[in-house]
């Protein structure tokens, strides 16, 4: 390293926050592979709830989850998180026209890393146990992060953040920072699959295992895990002269990630704090230069747990008051896809801004009292105005991330395939 003798400049004032153009998206979950399939499944009201596939149901109270059905035999297999992530990143990169990810930072948010593969490796470390269960599972230090699996896409600058259930939306915020610092393009990814330890510990804290995940429902009994991945290619949104709009693929419209507010409750290891959630939502609006009345749709975190849904509903009600936007919550369809869920919601929110369509909240029957002020759709809704979306993701430790997306230009070609109520 060259040590210069020139006086080093004082740290420059923080650069003006950059916005990120969504140049490509990718998503996969239990109800759909690929962005289009997943969004169509949500609009159709399908869900991925099924008896446990990769875990032995006899060992847990809850017998169901929202897994991706990609295992042929009766045994769980390693490496699934990395494979799902790579598929989502590939979809996003191809949509953005990126040939190789060499030199492009890839920020991956995950709650559980590849820990299911570690569990399999640990449980099959004895030859006898391995022979009974499908063979030993090699697992080394570099299997604990996602650098190696993304190398097949050319990626050489991968960063894995383990930020619980807000991880992938947290990564999106850091990606905006990289754009502000001058990077022309950044890839954000998020992924999680079931682990025995997390599924079992969540099971352990349920008095009465839920039969399905019911976001914001009065009779909700808790969370059930799901599996999924999502990815977004962000490019620096140019500063545009007034009256012009950025374009994507010449369609005359584009979706821009305006801001992602990041915060921490500093309150409790697992329970949320409505004040911390509210503060982060307001910070996101401020950073995006909008007010609550500008928000046309919210993709809520909505995990179906007693405390989380209550805290989020209280915070949303405080922010939006009597002018609550339509509020989607995808986890009734996908299960809680943990660290990948925030970015998955963001990718679905981009589709809502593109189509004007908001999927119904699967599993919701009667809203909880705290959620009475939210506009939770029970059928697909077509928005009158679909310009700004808010996306929430919250995690253990009070990790809060709230994103604001803005659609510029017109909507996609209308989608008349879905019955819609106003």
């Amino acid at each position: 390293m060259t040590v210069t003798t020139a006086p080093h400049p004082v740290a420059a004032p923080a650069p003006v926050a950059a916005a990120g153009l969504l140049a490509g998206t990718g998503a996969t979950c239990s109800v759909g592979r690929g962005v289009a399939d997943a969004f169509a499944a949500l609009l159709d009201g399908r869900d991925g709830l099924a008896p446990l596939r990769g875990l032995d149901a006899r060992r847990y109270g809850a017998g169901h989850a929202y897994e991706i059905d990609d295992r042929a035999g009766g045994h769980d297999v390693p490496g699934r998180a990395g494979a799902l992530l790579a598929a989502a990143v590939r979809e996003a990169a191809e949509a953005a026209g990126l040939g190789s990810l060499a030199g492009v930072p890839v920020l991956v948010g995950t709650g559980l890393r590849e820990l299911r593969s570690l569990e399999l490796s640990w449980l099959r470390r004895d030859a006898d146990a391995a022979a009974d269960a499908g063979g030993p599972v090699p697992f080394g230090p570099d299997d604990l992060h996602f650098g190696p699996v993304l190398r097949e896409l050319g990626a050489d600058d991968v960063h894995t953040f383990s930020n619980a259930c807000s991880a992938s939306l947290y990564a999106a915020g850091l990606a905006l920072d990289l754009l502000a610092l001058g990077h022309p393009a950044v890839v954000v990814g998020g992924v999680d699959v079931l682990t025995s330890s997390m599924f079992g510990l969540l099971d352990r804290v349920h008095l009465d295992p839920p039969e399905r995940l019911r976001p914001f429902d009065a009779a909700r009994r808790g969370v059930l895990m799901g599996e999924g991945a999502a990815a977004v290619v962000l490019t620096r949104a140019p500063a545009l002269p007034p009256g012009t709009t950025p374009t994507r693929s010449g369609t005359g419209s584009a979706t821009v990630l305006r801001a992602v507010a990041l915060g921490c409750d500093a309150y409790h290891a697992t329970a949320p704090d409505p004040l911390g959630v509210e503060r982060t939502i307001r910070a996101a609006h401020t950073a995006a230069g909008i007010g609550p009345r500008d928000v046309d749709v919210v993709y809520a975190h909505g995990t179906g747990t007693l405390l989380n849904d209550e805290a989020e509903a209280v915070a949303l009600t405080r922010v939006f008051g009597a002018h609550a936007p339509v509020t989607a919550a995808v986890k009734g369809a996908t299960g809680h896809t943990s660290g990948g869920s925030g970015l998955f919601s963001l990718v679905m929110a981009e589709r809502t801004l593109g189509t004007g369509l908001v999927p119904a909240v699967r599993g919701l029957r009667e809203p909880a009292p705290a959620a009475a002020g939210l506009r939770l759709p029970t059928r697909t809704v077509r928005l009158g105005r679909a310009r700004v979306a808010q996306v929430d993701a919250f995690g253990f430790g009070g990790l809060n991330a709230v994103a604001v997306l803005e659609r510029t230009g017109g909507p996609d070609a209308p989608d008349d395939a879905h019955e819609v109520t106003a």
Partner: protein
Amino acid sequence: MTTLDTRDAPVAAGTTAPRAWVHLPDAPAAVLATAALLPGRGVHTPADLLDAGGTPAPWDFDPHALLGRKGVRYKDRATLLALAACAVALDGLAPAADATRSAVVVASCYGNVGTVCDVAAAIERDGTGAISPMDLPNASSNVVAAALAIRFGVTGVCLSVCNGHASGWDALVWAGRLLAAGRADRVLVVGVETPSAAERHVRGTAAAPLLDGAAVALLARPEGDAPTAGRTTRTPAPVAADAEAAGVGGVLDLVAAVAAVGRDGGAVRLDAPGARPGRPAAWTVHGDPS
């Protein structure tokens, strides 16, 4: 309780004189405080990292002695080591004015793998009735960062870097980016690891022992010019070269470098393992030029 950012603190928080400056890839940073706790290697303070001669006496880590009784029960060893190291680093420090502008960035590869494997094995044997719900936070890979944010009142960015054995170096890179992008004015950077049977399973029995301990550096945006050319620029001997530092690496090297320039003045060159985009091979740590 020592606080990085106390909600009750007066708004006009005091300033803290930097111990040193480090030129991170995206921004210069002032180092306001450091700590290192490596019980098995006899390291209580950063100065202990400099004395290669003699045989340091290992000591038993007693979390109650450093943290008191409250908030210690049910926490895993990595979390307790990190909490104790941060309590040492922040002791007596003036709090930042705005807790929402403070961040914590933790690097750890193996902090929770012991809990994860123990819980999975217990479920495999006896089902979920055999596990403790108190392990729920400990199974989450962000348990250390969350516990630090709660104890020290950090309400800004809370980030857990799990990016392989250079995670500690990456944590410093991200701390610099948080400062450069204006996400934070202060960043508490922590590297922590602790050995376990599961960790040995991952790394192999022939691998060098995993370091047991935590290193902490509190970084801030410099208030004036960060010094550049020191009287000398030397490369210190690697810290704990006979062990695998994993997530502690980088942060521990910075802590040792700050101790070195504090004692000897001048500047120290840090060599990062395996340069990659955004992470140069060497960074420079400067002492007070005056």
